[in-house]
C-alpha cells in the first residue's frame, strides 16, 4: 500500500507544466508563434538536443511523483506510513537503490575497492579484495565469466534498444498528416529517413539521436541490475542511481528559479523602460543596489539566514525529504530574487526603444490605457527576449548549483545533487588508486545536460531573434 505525497516543489512543477501547456494551447493556431518552433525542430541540432532534454525532463518528472509506503500493520493500530519519501524513479530503479555495497567499488567491478580479511578456501586468513555483494555476484568465476557475460547481456540489451527504435519508427511516420496513398508511390525510392524529414517535419538527426538513446537505455537496463556500471560511492550506493537522482535537482534549480525571477524582471524591467522618470529612477536604484552586492555573497547570506530559520522551525518539516525540499525551494527563490537584474535591464532597454515606436504612439493617440499598452504592445514584443534569456540562463543555473553546493550554500547536504556528488568525491582523488568514477559520472551527466541546453538555447535564439540570423 502506498500513499501519494505532494512536496511543495512537486506542486510548483505541476504549476510550471500547466502554464507551459497553457501557452502551447494558446499558440497552437498562431502561425507566427508556431513557425519558429517548427523551424527549430527541423534543424538537426535543435531536434536532437530537444530530444535529449526531453529524456532528462522525463527522468526529472518521474522523480517528482512522490509517495510513502505503508508499514506492515500492527493489529489494533491505525495504518502507519514510512518516514522515507520515495519517488517513481526510486521505484523504477529499485534494484539499483537496494543493491548497496560496503564501500567504493569501481565501475563494472566484481570486487570491492578496499582489502578485507577473508577466510581462504583452506580455512586460513588472507587479506584480499572481497567479492561484491551484488555487482557481478551471479558470476561463478569472476575472472573467466566476466567478459562473456558482459558481452551477451550488453548485446541483448542493445538489440532490444534497436527493436524498440524500429517499433517507434513508423509511429513518427504515421504521426504526420498527408495523403498516405499519394505518398506511398513516391515513397518507394526514398530512404525512410528522407520520408521522415519530409512528412514529419523533424530532422533526420532526431531519429539518429533516438537510436543512440534507445541503445544506451537498452544497455543500461540489461547491465544495471547485475553490475554497478558507474561503480559505487563511499557508502556503497550505486553511482548511476545517484546520477539519475541528481537530475531532478538540477532541473528544478534551472526552471523554478526562472519562475521566481520572471515576474520581477518582466514587471520592473518593462515598467522602468515604459514609464521612465521617477519609476525608472526607483527601479534602477533597486537593481544597481542588488547588482552591487557580489552574487555569491548575497546568495550565501540569504541561504545562511534560511538555513537558520529551517533549523529553528524544524518541527514544521516532518520528513528529511520535506526539509531538503524547502531548502531547495528557498535556494530557487533566492537565486530568482537576486537574479532578475540582468533580464530586467535588457527589457528596460527594449521597452525604452518600443515606447518610441510608432505603433505605441498610435495606441496612445487612441487614448488606450497604460496597462493595455503594456500588455498588448510591449509584452508580446519582448517575449522572444524573455524566452531566449530563460533558456540561456537554464544551463548557467545547473552549473551554479554545483558551485554553490561546494561553497556550502547550495541544496541540503542530504539531498542528492550533482554538487553534493562532486563535493563528496573531490577529496578521494588523493587516494591510490584514484576513485574517479563518482566525479566523472557527475560531470558527465551535467555536461550532457548543459551542452544540450546550450545548443538548444542557441537554436532558440536563432529561431526567435531576427537579429541573430546569419551569425552563430
Amino acid at each position, binding site marked *: 500500500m502506498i500513499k501519494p505525497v505532494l512536496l511543495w516543489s512537486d506542486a510548483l512543477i505541476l504549476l510550471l507544466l500547466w502554464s507551459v501547456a497553457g501557452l502551447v494551447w494558446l499558440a497552437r493556431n498562431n502561425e507566427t508563434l508556431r513557425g519558429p518552433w517548427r523551424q527549430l525542430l527541423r534543424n538537426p541540432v535543435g531536434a536532437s538536443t530537444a530530444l535529449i532534454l526531453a529524456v532528462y525532463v522525463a527522468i526529472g518528472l518521474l522523480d517528482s511523483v512522490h509517495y510513502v509506503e505503508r508499514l506492515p500493520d500492527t493489529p489494533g493500530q491505525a495504518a502507519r506510513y514510512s518516514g522515507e519519501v520515495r519517488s517513481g524513479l526510486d521505484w523504477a530503479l529499485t534494484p539499483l537503490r537496494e543493491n548497496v555495497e560496503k564501500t567504493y567499488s569501481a565501475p563494472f567491478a566484481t570486487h570491492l575497492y578496499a582489502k578485507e580479511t577473508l577466510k581462504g578456501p583452506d580455512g586460513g586468513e588472507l587479506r584480499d579484495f572481497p567479492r561484491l555483494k551484488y555487482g557481478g555476484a551471479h558470476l561463478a568465476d569472476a575472472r573467466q565469466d566476466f567478459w562473456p557475460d558482459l558481452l551477451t547481456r550488453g548485446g541483448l540489451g542493445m538489440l532490444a534498444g534497436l527493436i524498440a527504435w524500429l517499433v517507434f519508427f513508423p509511429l513518427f511516420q504515421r504521426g504526420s498528416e498527408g495523403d498516405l496513398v499519394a505518398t506511398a508511390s513516391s515513397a518507394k525510392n526514398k530512404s525512410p529517413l528522407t520520408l521522415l524529414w519530409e512528412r514529419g517535419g523533424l530532422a533526420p538527426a532526431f531519429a539518429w539521436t533516438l537510436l543512440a538513446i534507445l541503445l544506451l537505455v537498452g544497455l543500461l537496463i540489461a547491465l544495471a541490475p547485475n553490475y554497478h556500471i558507474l561503480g559505487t560511492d563511499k557508502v556503497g550506493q550505486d553511482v548511476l542511481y545517484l546520477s539519475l537522482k541528481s537530475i531532478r535537482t538540477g532541473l528544478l534549480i534551472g526552471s523554478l528559479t526562472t519562475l521566481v525571477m520572471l515576474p520581477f524582471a518582466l514587471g520592473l524591467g518593462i515598467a522602468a523602460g515604459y514609464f521612465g522618470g521617477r519609476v525608472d529612477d526607483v527601479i534602477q536604484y533597486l537593481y544597481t543596489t542588488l547588482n552591487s552586492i557580489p552574487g555569491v555573497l548575497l546568495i550565501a547570506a540569504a541561504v545562511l539566514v534560511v538555513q537558520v530559520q529551517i533549523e529553528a522551525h524544524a518541527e514544521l518539516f516532518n520528513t528529511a525529504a520535506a526539509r531538503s525540499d524547502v531548502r531547495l525551494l528557498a535556494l530557487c527563490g533566492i537565486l530568482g530574487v537576486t537574479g532578475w537584474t540582468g533580464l530586467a535591464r535588457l527589457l528596460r532597454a527594449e521597452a525604452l526603444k518600443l515606447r518610441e515606436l510608432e*505603433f505605441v*504612439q*498610435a495606441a*496612445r493617440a*487612441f*487614448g*488606450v490605457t497604460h496597462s493595455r499598452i503594456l500588455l498588448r*504592445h510591449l509584452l*508580446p514584443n519582448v517575449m522572444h527576449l524573455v524566452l531566449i534569456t530563460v533558456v540561456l540562463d537554464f544551463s548557467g543555473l545547473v552549473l551554479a548549483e554545483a558551485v554553490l553546493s561546494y561553497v556550502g550554500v547550495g541544496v541540503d547536504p542530504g539531498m542528492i545533487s550533482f554538487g553534493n556528488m562532486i563535493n563528496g568525491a573531490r577529496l578521494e582523488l588523493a587516494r591510490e588508486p584514484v576513485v574517479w568514477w563518482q566525479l566523472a559520472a557527475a560531470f558527465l551527466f551535467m555536461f550532457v545536460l548543459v551542452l544540450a541546453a546550450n545548443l538548444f538555447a542557441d537554436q532558440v535564439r536563432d529561431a526567435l531573434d531576427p537579429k541573430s540570423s546569419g551569425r552563430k
Partner: protein
Amino acid sequence: MKTPMKGLSVENLSVEISAGNRLLKPVEGVSFAIGRDECVALLGESGCGKSMTALALMRLLPDGARVASGSARLEGEELFALTEAAMGDVRGGRLAMIFQEPQTSLNPVMTVAEQIAEALAAHRDLSGNAVSAEAGRLLEAVGLERDRLAAYPFQLSGGQRQRALIAMMLAGEPEVLIADEPTTALDVTVQAQILALLRDLQRQRGMGLLLITHDLDVASDMADRVAVMYAGQIVEWADRDSLYATPRHPYTQKLFAVLPRLDRRGERLDSLPGRVPPPDAVIIGCRFAERCPAVFARCRKEAPGFHESAPGHFARCHLAEAQTIPPFLKGGPGGISTHAGVPTAANPPPPPFEKEGSDVLAVRDLAVHFPIRKGLFRHTVDHFKAVDGVSLSIQAGETLALVGESGCGKSTLARAVLRLIEPTRGEVWVAGVAVGGLSGEVLRKKRAEMQIVFQDPFSSLNPRMRVGEILEEGMAALLPLTAAERRARIAQLLDQVGLPGDAVGRYPHEFSGGQRQRIAIARALAVQPKLLILDEPTSALDVSVQAQILNLLADLQAAHGLAYLFITHNLPVVGYLAQRVAVMRAGRIVEEGPAERLLTAPQHEYTRLLLDSAPGKHPFVGQVGA
C-alpha cells in the same frame, strides 16, 4: 553596346545569394559602361538590385552573396579575376564608393584626419607631413575647412560627413566613383550642395561617376546616361535627353506617369499595380509582364531582348524591337487598355468637398520647449525650442502641407497637437474645443476626432497583432460599438482602403510597405476622425506606391471631408496635394500661403532656397559648353 577603353565596363553581371535552401538572384545579366568624364545614373526602385550591383563591382558583397557570372573591366583590367590583395589596391584607389547613410558610414571613434590618412597610406606613397597636407587639400576640395581634420564624425553635420566621406574616397584618385544614394538621407538644400560637389569633382578630376538613385529628378540633373533597373535587370539604357524626352520601356513610362507634380493638381495620379517579382521567382517571359499596361501574349512566353530602338537608346521590351511604341498611354486605337479597375489620369477628379467654414484644427502660438540640464544637480540652464510659437488652421476637406527640413520641429508639432507630448504654451482647438484644457475621459473621447498616420510603415504596426485587432483597438477604446458592429466596420474599412477582406486574420509582416500604410490609414479612420495628421506618410515608399497612397488619401478626403495636416519635405507632393502650405524652420513658420502662389512666387528667402534646391530643374549637363 560598344565597350569604351576608358572607364568601367560591366558585361552580363549576375549576383546570387544562397539563403537557406533558396537561391536568390538579385542581379541578373546587367551590362553597362561608364566612360571617364561622364556620369551614369543607375535608376530604380527599392529592391531592384542597384546597390547589389555596386557592391558586386567593389567586390564587397555581403556574406552569402557572390558574383555568379559576368565581367567588370576597369580600364580594360578584369576586376573579378584579381586576387584579394590586388583588389585591395583597386578598392578605394582606382575604384571608390560612397554610401547612403552619412550617420553610420564613418568610424565614430576616429578623427576625419585619421580616416583620410588611412586611405592615403593605402593608396599613395605619402608619409609624415605630406599626409596631413594632402588630407587638408582633400578636405578643401570637398568644401570643408582644413580645421575639420581634427573633428570626430559626431561633431559634423550630415552634409559635412558626406563631404568627409567623399574626401576619403578621393584620396586614391579614383578613375570611377560609385555613389550609392549619396543624398537620400540628406535634406533637400544639403542634397543640392552635395550633388553639385559630386558633379564638379567629376568634371575637374575627369573621373567616371556611377550614381545610384531612385529619384528621377536627381538622375535628370546629374547623369549623362541613365540605366533604368527593374527586378535585377537593366530595362532601359539611353542618353539622359533621349530617355527623358521619349522613354521607351513601359516601366520607365510608368515611373514618369506616377510622379505627383504641381501641374497634376486635381488629377488622379497614374498608378502601377502589383509588386516587383521576388528575387527567387522563376520567370519565363518578361519580368515586367504582370504589371505592364502594354502586355501581350508573347511577353509571357519569351523574355525580351535588349533592343536598340533609337541610336544609343536600348530597351528590354518586345515593343522596342519594332521601333514603334504604341501610344497605349493615350488610349489610342493601337493602344492597350490599362489594367482593369485601376483608375487612370482620364478619370475625372473627385468633386471638391463642400467647406463648412469653421476650422477643424486651429493652433495659436503653440510652443514645445525641452529643458537642457547641466551642472552638478542637473538644473535647467536653457531650453531647446523645438516648436516656438506656431499658429495655423485647417478647415474641413482642406489639406495644409507643413514643409520643413529635418529637425525643424514639424513632427514635434504634430505630437503636441495630439497631446502625445505636452506643449509648453499655446492653444490647440480641434473642432472648436480647446484640447489643452481636457483631461481624463473627456480627452480620451476627444482623441477620436484627431488621428495620425506615421512615416514608417514597418514600425507603425504592432508585429504581434492581427490586422483585425489593430483596426479594432481604437474603436474598442473610443467608440460605443458592439463587437458585431466593430467587425462590420472593420470589413468596411478594409474595403475603403482597398485591402482584401481576409486581411483581418493576418499579421502585418505578410503585407508590403504600401499595404501596411493602407492598414495604418484604416486604423486612423476607424474612429471617424475629423483631423488626420499625415507625418511623411509616403516618404518611405517607392514612387509607384506613393501614387496609390496619395490617390487613396484624396478619395478619403473627398468622401469624408477630412482635414489633413500633411507633414513632408517633398515639394512635388506638396504641389500636387495641398491647398495651403506652411514652411517651417527652427520651430517657427516662416511663410504660409496658398500652394500655387507659394510654390511659384515665394516671398521668404528660405522658401526660395528650398524650391531652388529641389532637384529636377537644373540639369548640370545643360551648362556644359560643348
